[in-house]
């Protein structure tokens, strides 16, 4: 049996508007879908421009793969601009793959889909409903809107012109419409336009569904986005900068739009029938509340600042779970899910996943390398399509009128250049969103070279450099922007403070963040989460928690905030709160390896071993090199789930991720670590030291330390520099070693009484009072605990080999101990060289009888 599916697109639909309407019973059809199906957030992508997003939905690919990078594109002769077209797309859409496999497919209004593509059914392009002429003039339909062209007359008659609408259509949006002088205020006509466009799409789509055979049918409505861009500013609660009169008149337009769409949905659900799977989606949300920006930035595509990062997904059908909530869905998941729904293979070059959790019986996924390399023969993509200049100009003008595109420059050479820049900038941002930093950087560098006067390219490049860890380059750009006063100073301070965080100067960063806290838009900048990160990094966990709770009150929907809150509570041992916060974060941003890892760790601590393993597996899916997650998984499979085969497989992968080896000399302070470093130095092992701490009477031969080690908890990058060298790491830092290296740890042991005496003497030499009376038992226990914890941790890691060496044994039996160390280091050193620097005179605190505690 063929599983029918209807895909309905509502541009910009947002749960924040929908939920209160459902509570009031104003969206009964969507309520039916919610109660009988599966819903969730649908994470958008950056940049959040509709033609790019809807193409990602239809192809399962990032914009840098699918070729749609904006709203407009230069014509072939570069003398004019035209809207993006179906022919601009460089990869296959879902309806092409399904058509090739003989599924009956129809598509109406998808953006962009003009000229209408050939498919195994009817396709109607996104220019079909546009009112490019007056009703009295006959309102001709643009050519290329319908495939097959033989159906043009049938569908032309189903278009609704805004001039046809009456007060009955407008009053639900503007109950006091009669008070408006329409010769001065044209907003009523814009409502009529949006409403008529949606009616045209609905009429064409329902006509197809009622009269044609179909297996897959897709329809796209841009109307909620248009109602929202035009009228969200009047949506309650009233904002201070909105005039009372305008608020009173237009406050119901957005909710009116949603209620109208619920009616459209009701009809489609009726026609689809219960045997069909319906998937309702939006490409992004739209800030409906206090998060609405007061001003839209004056930059190309600035209207995007009104969007919110989560759209909606709702599914209902015979195979879909009922009354169920899914987490972590994104736009890129739609195409793979549809392919799996029909039992077709997913291209490995697609960037999303199957939303298997929405199905009562998990969908089985199969894969092929790519659909792009398979020649499709049954239906051809339109080629050599040329829009007539008049239509081109009319469509461009509509995009300007809707606020998607800025006014077009009168000089067409400049207009073409502006469009190319805008599209390239979007391409760079798409690369950035897809984690392709190098490609993003290369485009931004080129844009800066060609447009040195446009600061936002520098600003974004500085941000890319930061993410890439190229802090010097980022600093240079920030300094340039500051020097030339190129950019908004507060935004620059934000960038500077973030840069300081990257440079691990958390106190300075915190001071700067605090200084601008009241000047920035707290919601857009998420400054409180950044402040929390600074507090975390300097050890003020409670203050970090406080900052995050403040941010939560402002905007609950910010995944990094919940992640950090979860990590704090994991560290505090509040595992239930940690799990809840981490699940919330994952629900908003699924593909975060760190969030899944901490969730796994918190579940492990609760004794939930199977789900902990599932979370850690998920963490590895998003970062296969995360050996921290892998190490815990190995432990769970070995010790708790009795799955040695899985443990062995992970162990193999664990070692494949290892980048090199580091020799660690560890132990408690004053346990002989400096002596061991000296021995290794003499034996020819390169030492990782900055030589800042010079020799003194406490360590006459030097300390062999490096300041970087002290930052190991926060900064692990330096470990790469210590590869094949020996580095001194005090025992309590051992559990912070990154698991992407093999370590040979020489763990120095010394009687704890001796250590305490040695430490006390050293402190006294440095000017401290004799604290002998304050010490003993408590300090001794704390030392012991820290040492034992580190050793226990190290003993569980498969990338760590450890040898314990007693200080007293080295002094008493130097050659035997040196021989043992030489063997441990695979004979990279000889015992003879090792023992040369041993100076028994330095053993000043020897107890009469030493025992290892």
């Amino acid at each position, binding site marked *: 049996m063929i599983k029918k599916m209807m895909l309905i697109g509502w541009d910009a639909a947002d749960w924040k508007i929908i939920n209160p309407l459902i509570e009031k019973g104003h969206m009964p059809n969507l309520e039916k879908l919610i109660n009988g199906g599966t819903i969730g957030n649908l994470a958008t992508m950056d940049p959040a421009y509709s033609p790019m997003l809807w193409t990602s939905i239809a192809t399962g690919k990032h914009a840098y793969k699918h070729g749609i990078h904006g709203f407009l594109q230069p014509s072939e002769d570069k003398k004019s601009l035209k809207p993006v077209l179906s022919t601009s797309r460089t990869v296959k859409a879902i309806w092409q793959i399904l058509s090739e496999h003989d599924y009956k497919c129809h598509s109406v209004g998808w953006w962009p889909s003009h000229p209408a593509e050939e498919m195994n059914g009817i396709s109607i392009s996104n220019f079909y409903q546009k009112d490019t002429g007056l009703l009295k003039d006959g309102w001709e339909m643009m050519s290329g809107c319908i495939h097959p062209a033989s159906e043009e007359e049938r569908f032309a008659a189903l278009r609704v012109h805004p001039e046809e609408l009456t007060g009955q*259509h407008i009053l639900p949006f503007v109950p006091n419409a009669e008070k408006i002088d329409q010769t001065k205020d044209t907003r009523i006509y814009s409502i009529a336009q949006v409403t008529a466009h949606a009616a045209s799409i*609905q*009429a064409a*789509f329902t006509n197809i569904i009622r009269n044609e055979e179909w297996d897959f049918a897709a329809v796209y409505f841009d109307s909620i986005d248009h109602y929202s861009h035009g009228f969200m500013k009047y949506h309650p609660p009233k904002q201070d900068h909105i005039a009372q009169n305008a608020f009173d008149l237009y406050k119901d337009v957005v909710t009116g739009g949603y209620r109208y769409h619920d*009616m459209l949905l009701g009809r489609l659900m*009726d026609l689809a029938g219960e045997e069909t799977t319906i998937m309702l989606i939006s490409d992004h949300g739209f800030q409906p509340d206090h998060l609405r920006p007061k001003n839209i930035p004056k930059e190309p595509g600035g209207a995007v600042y009104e969007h919110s990062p989560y759209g909606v997904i709702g599914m209902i059908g015979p195979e879909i779970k009922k009354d169920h909530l899914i987490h972590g869905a994104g736009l890129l998941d739609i195409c793979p899910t549809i392919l799996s729904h029909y039992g077709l293979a997913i291209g490995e070059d697609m960037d999303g996943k199957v939303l298997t959790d929405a199905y009562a019986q998990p969908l089985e996924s199969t894969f092929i390398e790519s659909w792009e390399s398979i020649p499709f023969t049954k239906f051809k993509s339109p080629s050599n399509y040329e829009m007539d200049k008049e239509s081109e100009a009319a469509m461009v003008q509509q995009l300007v009128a809707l606020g998607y595109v800025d006014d077009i420059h009168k000089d067409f050479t400049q207009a073409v250049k502006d469009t190319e820049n805008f599209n390239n900038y979007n391409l760079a941002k798409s690369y950035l969103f897809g984690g392709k930093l190098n490609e993003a950087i290369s485009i931004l560098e080129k844009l800066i070279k060609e447009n040195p006067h446009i600061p936002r390219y520098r600003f974004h490049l500085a941000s890319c450099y930061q993410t890439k860890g190229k802090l010097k380059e980022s600093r240079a750009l920030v300094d340039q922007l500051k020097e030339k006063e190129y950019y908004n100073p507060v935004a620059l301070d934000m960038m500077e403070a973030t840069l300081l965080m990257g440079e691990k100067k958390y106190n300075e960063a915190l001071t700067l963040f605090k200084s601008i806290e009241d000047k920035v838009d707290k919601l857009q900048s998420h400054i409180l989460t950044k402040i929390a990160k600074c507090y975390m990094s300097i050890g003020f966990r409670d203050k970090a928690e406080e900052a995050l709770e403040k941010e939560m009150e402002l905007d609950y929907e910010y995944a990094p905030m919940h992640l950090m809150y979860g990590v704090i509570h994991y560290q505090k041992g509040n595992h239930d709160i940690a799990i809840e916060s981490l699940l919330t974060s994952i629900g908003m941003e699924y593909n975060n390896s760190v969030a899944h890892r901490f969730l796994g760790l918190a579940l492990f601590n609760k004794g939930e071993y199977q789900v902990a393993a599932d979370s850690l597996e998920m963490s590895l899916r998003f970062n296969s090199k995360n050996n921290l997650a892998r190490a815990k998984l190995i432990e769970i499979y070995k010790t708790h789930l009795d799955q040695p085969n899985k443990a062995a497989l992970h162990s193999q992968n664990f070692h494949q991720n290892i980048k090199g080896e580091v020799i660690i000399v560890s132990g408690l302070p004053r346990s002989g670590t400096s002596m061991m470093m000296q021995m290794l130095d003499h034996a020819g092992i390169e030492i990782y030291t900055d030589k800042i701490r010079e020799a003194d009477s406490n360590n006459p031969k030097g300390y062999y330390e490096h300041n970087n080690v002290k930052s190991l908890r926060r900064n692990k990058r330096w470990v790469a520099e210590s590869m094949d060298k020996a580095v001194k790491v005090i025992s309590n830092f051992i559990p912070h070693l990154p698991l992407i290296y093999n370590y040979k740890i020489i763990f120095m042991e010394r009687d704890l009484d001796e250590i305490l005496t040695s430490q006390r003497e050293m402190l006294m030499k440095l000017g401290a009072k004799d604290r002998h009376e304050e010490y003993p038992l408590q300090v001794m226990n704390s030392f012991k605990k820290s040492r034992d914890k580190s050793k226990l941790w190290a003993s569980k890691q498969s990338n760590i080999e450890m040898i314990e060496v007693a200080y007293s044994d080295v002094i008493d039996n130097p050659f035997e101990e040196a021989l043992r160390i030489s063997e441990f280091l695979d004979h990279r050193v000889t015992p003879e060289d090792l023992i040369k620097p041993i100076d028994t005179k330095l053993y000043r605190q020897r107890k009469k009888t030493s025992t290892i505690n």
Partner: protein
Amino acid sequence: MKNFQNSPFVKTKAGEQLQIDKDGSLGLLALGDIGLQLWRQKKIAHHNELEIRKSKVVSSNSSTKES
């Protein structure tokens, strides 16, 4: 499509009854092609009716004048 020209209502598949009025409604637009066609037919019928009434008035006026 059936001619609903003379019916004042249309019933949806779900049983909802919608009034077909010459001024239309969002409900009729939401019905899609059928709702649109019913509304347009109603508008035409209303227009025709007006035309007939108008012509009747004109002809009765002219016959009054003639007499």
